[in-house]
């Protein structure tokens, strides 16, 4: 390529990248600050991380978040993958309509989704708790999984499936031995997306959790609301590190399989 960028452009873009990452970097840096008042730097300390271990509510919330994320990822990945497989077998017209309507839950404001679910649970008389949170998370993760798996299905080489069928495999065997292994990176990517979405969700959880099911984001929100305390920096930094590691790991696994 002969084309050169004007010299000011990369400088501008570097500045934007800086701004894009500055807030979280500052947050992580201040989680190591010895001072209570996070603006002034008074030396490196692991004090706030040590404090985390003395907070059973944080550990409990973390455990609940991981439980909810695991359960809803399993449900949403299974159901979402089936939706994608079904969609790819629909005739063109039906496919467009169903696929288009899959985007509706994705773009609906979370506050609307959360409140309408709350209304449903109250109207039917279902007690709010861990169960309702898992139901809600599964619901908002299904479309994301379906869209990701569908993208993988589109890019897949379907002649291999046909070859398996011609060579005498029935549909179920061809699916299990050929389609599923080819689809695995897409399913993994969908599951990873579902897991992070569930782990991060605050708004919908806030409405359907009830007092007994405080996930980590709900707890962090109430801590932020009650007043800033440096323990939040430490919790947030840990969350950032965990998601970054998960994504890096998944990228590596996906890369090896040639995603």
């Amino acid at each position, binding site marked *: *390529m002969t*084309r050169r*960028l*004007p010299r000011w*452009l990369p400088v*501008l*873009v570097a500045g934007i990248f800086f*701004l*894009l*990452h*500055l*807030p*979280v970097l*500052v*947050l992580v840096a*201040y989680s190591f600050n010895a001072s209570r008042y*996070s603006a*002034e730097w008074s030396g490196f300390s692991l004090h706030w991380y040590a404090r985390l271990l003395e907070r059973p509510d944080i550990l409990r919330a973390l455990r609940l978040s991981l439980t909810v994320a695991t359960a809803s990822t399993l449900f949403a990945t299974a159901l*979402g993958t*089936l*939706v994608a*497989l*079904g*969609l790819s*077998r*629909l005739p063109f017209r039906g496919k467009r309509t169903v696929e*288009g309507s899959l*985007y*509706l839950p994705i*773009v*609906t*404001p979370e*506050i*609307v989704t959360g*409140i*309408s*679910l*709350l*209304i*449903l649970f109250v*109207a039917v008389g279902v007690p709010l708790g861990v169960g309702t949170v898992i139901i809600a998370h599964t*619901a*908002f993760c299904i479309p994301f999984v379906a869209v990701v798996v569908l993208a993988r299905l*589109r890019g897949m080489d379907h002649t291999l499936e046909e070859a398996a069928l011609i060579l005498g495999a029935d*549909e*179920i065997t061809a699916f299990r031995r050929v389609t599923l292994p080819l689809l695995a990176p897409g399913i993994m990517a969908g599951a990873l997306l579902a897991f992070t979405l569930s782990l*991060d969700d*605050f*708004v919908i959880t806030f409405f359907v959790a009830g007092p007994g099911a405080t996930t980590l*984001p709900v707890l*962090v929100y109430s801590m*932020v609301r009650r007043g*800033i305390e440096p323990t*939040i*920096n430490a919790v*947030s930094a840990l*969350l*950032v590190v965990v*998601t970054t590691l*998960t994504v890096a790991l998944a990228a590596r696994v996906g890369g090896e399989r040639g995603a």
Partner: protein
Amino acid sequence: MSLRRRLLGFFARRPVAGAWALLSPGLLWLVLFFAIPLAILIGYSVLHRGTYGGVMPGFTLEHYRRFSDPIYLAVAARTLWIALATTGLCLLLGYPVAYVIARAGRWRNVLLFLVILPFWTSFLVRTYAMIVLLRSSGVINSLLLGLGVTSTPLDLLYTPGAVLAGLVYGYLPFMILPIYASLERLDLDLLDAAEALGARAWSRFRRVTLPLSLPGVAAGSLLVFIPSLGAFLTPDLLGGAKTMMLGNLVQNQFGAARNWPFGSAISFALMLVVFVGLLAWLRVRDAEGAT
């Protein structure tokens, strides 16, 4: 084995029935826990208000008539301008970034990773990080005080500006990625042709690159505008009572104000706008050639 064979035979003769059989568990879940709740919500918007929250039977359009109340019109207008300004700022910041990444050669993957990384970081954590920067004893104010730019801390938090900053920070990747996708597909021969025909750099950009990247611009703008319109967490934490947006108004009606039908009516209005936005996005995407 015979059941398996009979099932296979059935679905081999009726491939569409087989497709629906695969679709149905997931779709059923979405009908039960997305569509039906939404339908109930829409139904509630024409019922009478219960005294302690909830609804009373009857039919009324008074909750929709309340939209013309100046207090609520002001919230709607604020929501609209904040969402539009967020989209505009994201476009202004995101386009150059997408352009540089598309021309970055071997740095491309690293830069893309840097764009996507914040997307994987909890939105709540990122919003909280903005509080750490903006509050009166925050990083920016201590920097300004330390440099002697100002003698008293500035009120940065709990302003429309803070909400705007939070939304731009939150949704910028949504703008960058679709623009990058359309710039990356751009046929560089066209630019060579334009140059050979004597077009200067600026005119090559304005008359070749920019028009060909418009589908990405449209997709990115919708992907930023739609969630900004329905924002709840950002104005809740960064905006304070004076910067209420429609999302906060909804929450307020189901909380302190105890007016479920009015809250439902606002939600439905929001949904309608989002639905139109979604249809527009699907059209743009299909016109661009399914990606």
